[in-house]
């Protein structure tokens, strides 16, 4: 067997390991093993890459210098990656994932750029065989040209889109506000037209390195302008979509350098991102196009004063503790506010205090609660809350009528009954947690300010709702103290 055959076999093994890794991700107990297998697959693929013909030939021709440089670059990257991954707090996971994602996209765009550069250089070679092969690849409308163009575009969009998403999630001052320039659709349309022209140009003139980098620049701008208008609560969709893009960029790079492990791993990631995107959109009852280009319409929202007028009841920690004392079943609904307040450990304390009294405590997790898919699960898991108690929306919704107390912490739109009752509401039809059906609802919130959708929440004015106006963490700590005193 030729050495290339062995390398391809290693790539095949790596691809299989990736598929098994995804398969093991379906259970919390097997997922750790899945992650190890994924890493093992990656290690095999990377070693195989070092044995590729061009690398080895170069090694023979000029010694080990080249491979050592690559090794140093890899070590630098690995050290930065490990440091970031170990240092970042769990509440910052969405940003962290966005950032890592962007690096992957940028790497793909650079690989395609480097390959195009090498290929055009080879076409000018004095050796007829080399020039001939390069010329075949660089003929108009070949796979090489199309894939190179797509890699550059998707890679650039991924990198800059991820960067903007990171900046928004980190709440950097410049990016905090969604970009709502009324002309943004025209700007995006214009950029899209330029992008298509450049792709077409690169397919007709594949030797034009300039066109490629122009495409990367336009893709970079497009990545920014597409992500900047998207608001905080839609971030889960953006994160999933960018994740999908980074996979597709890698797959496209696989077409450029004719490498099947890139194509397989890239398309697995692409598929995974697309599925999560679809799940997130469904959980918000919105179309992907609506999330990307729409922004929420607020024209038909009910007036806040009419909804709340004189009906909002505020309660003290002692009063709420008294209600909790008599409860046999309590459900906690976490939202992004919980992550902001870093209240996950306080919540665990409260749950412990309740459980000591014989109360059943469970957690209702809305699919889009937080800023990335499954965000709340990770946060509560960090506070050692067993995952059996974290229940999904469809699973827990029927149990609310038998629930004594629901405690909503930092969630708003996902518990807004207007989604169910008011067909004119901007969030009409969005699946929500039916907390209003519980006997008593305690809402921990800093003020009556609206959530991301910018609409008032009739839940806050309901007869069975008690508002507790305070910072999430402080409120929960006070509740726990009051409960332990009584």
């Amino acid at each position, binding site marked *: 067997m030729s050495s290339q055959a062995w390398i391809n076999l290693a790539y095949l093994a790596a691809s299989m390991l990736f598929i098994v890794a995804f398969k093991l991700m379906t259970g919390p107990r097997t997922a750790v093993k899945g992650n190890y297998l994924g890493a093992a697959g990656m290690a095999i693929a990377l070693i195989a890459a070092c044995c590729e013909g061009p690398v080895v030939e170069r090694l023979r021709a000029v010694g080990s210098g080249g491979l050592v440089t690559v090794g140093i670059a890899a070590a630098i990257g*690995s050290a930065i990656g490990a440091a970031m991954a170990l240092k970042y707090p769990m509440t910052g996971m969405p940003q962290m994932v966005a950032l890592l994602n962007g690096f992957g996209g940028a790497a793909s765009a650079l690989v395609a750029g480097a390959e195009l550069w090498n290929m055009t250089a080879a076409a000018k070679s004095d050796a007829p065989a080399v020039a001939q092969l390069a010329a075949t690849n660089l003929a108009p409308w070949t796979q090489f040209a199309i894939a190179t163009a797509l890699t550059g575009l998707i890679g650039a969009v991924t990198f800059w889109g991820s960067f903007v998403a990171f900046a928004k999630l980190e709440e950097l001052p410049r990016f905090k506000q969604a970009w709502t320039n009324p002309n943004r659709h025209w700007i995006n349309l214009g950029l899209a037209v330029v992008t298509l022209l450049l792709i077409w140009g690169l397919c007709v003139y594949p030797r034009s390195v300039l066109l490629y980098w122009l495409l990367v620049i336009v893709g970079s701008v497009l990545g920014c302008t597409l992500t900047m208008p998207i608001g905080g609560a839609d971030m889960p969709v953006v994160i999933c979509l960018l994740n999908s893009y980074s996979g597709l960029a890698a797959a496209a790079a696989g077409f450029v350098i004719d490498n099947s492990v890139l194509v397989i791993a890239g398309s697995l990631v692409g598929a995974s991102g697309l599925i999560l995107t679809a799940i997130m959109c469904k959980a918000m009852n919105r179309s992907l196009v609506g999330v990307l280009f729409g922004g929420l319409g607020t024209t038909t929202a009910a007036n806040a004063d009419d909804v709340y007028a004189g009906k909002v009841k505020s309660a003290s920690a002692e009063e709420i503790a008294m209600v909790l004392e008599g409860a046999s079943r309590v459900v906690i609904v976490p939202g992004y506010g919980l992550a902001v307040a870093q209240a996950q450990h306080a919540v665990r304390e409260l749950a412990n205090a309740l459980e000591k009294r014989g109360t059943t405590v469970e957690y209702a997790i809305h699919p889009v609660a937080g800023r990335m898919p499954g965000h709340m699960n990770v946060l509560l898991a960090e506070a050692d809350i067993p995952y059996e108690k974290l229940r999904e929306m469809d699973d827990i919704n029927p149990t609310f009528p038998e629930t004594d107390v629901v405690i909503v912490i930092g969630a708003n739109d996902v518990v807004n009954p207007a989604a169910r009752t008011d067909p004119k509401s901007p969030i009409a039809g969005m699946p929500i947690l039916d907390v209003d059906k519980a006997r008593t609802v305690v809402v921990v919130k800093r003020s009556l300010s609206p959530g991301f959708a910018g609409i008032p929440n009739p839940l806050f004015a309901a007869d069975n709702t008690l508002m507790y106006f305070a910072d999430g963490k402080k409120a929960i700590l006070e509740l726990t103290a009051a409960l332990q005193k009584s």
Partner: protein
Amino acid sequence: MSPSLLIPLLADVAVAEDPATRFIRLLTVFLLAMWVGFEVITKVPQRLHTPLTSGSNAISGITAVGAIVVAGAMATRFGSLLGLLAVVLAMINVVGGFVVTHRMLEMFNPKKK
């Protein structure tokens, strides 16, 4: 750049396969892998969506393979430079992704103290 150094760059292209055939071959792999991805990932429960996102994110760093080949071949100076930069970025993605996923998954499992 002497021609002899450019030959290895094209060594794997030298197989007698016209571009169209190669495209169809890769497209087959792409579509089948997408299909497998859809089948496997629809079964991941909601609570594991964050580790799934970060884990798949790590795997998208597979582009490091391409970066190593391009950088290691050192066919042109500028190409190698881009390749090396790609190696750094892709390895941040790979290592960061796997480590962060591991950190998250550890929290899902009861502590073995």
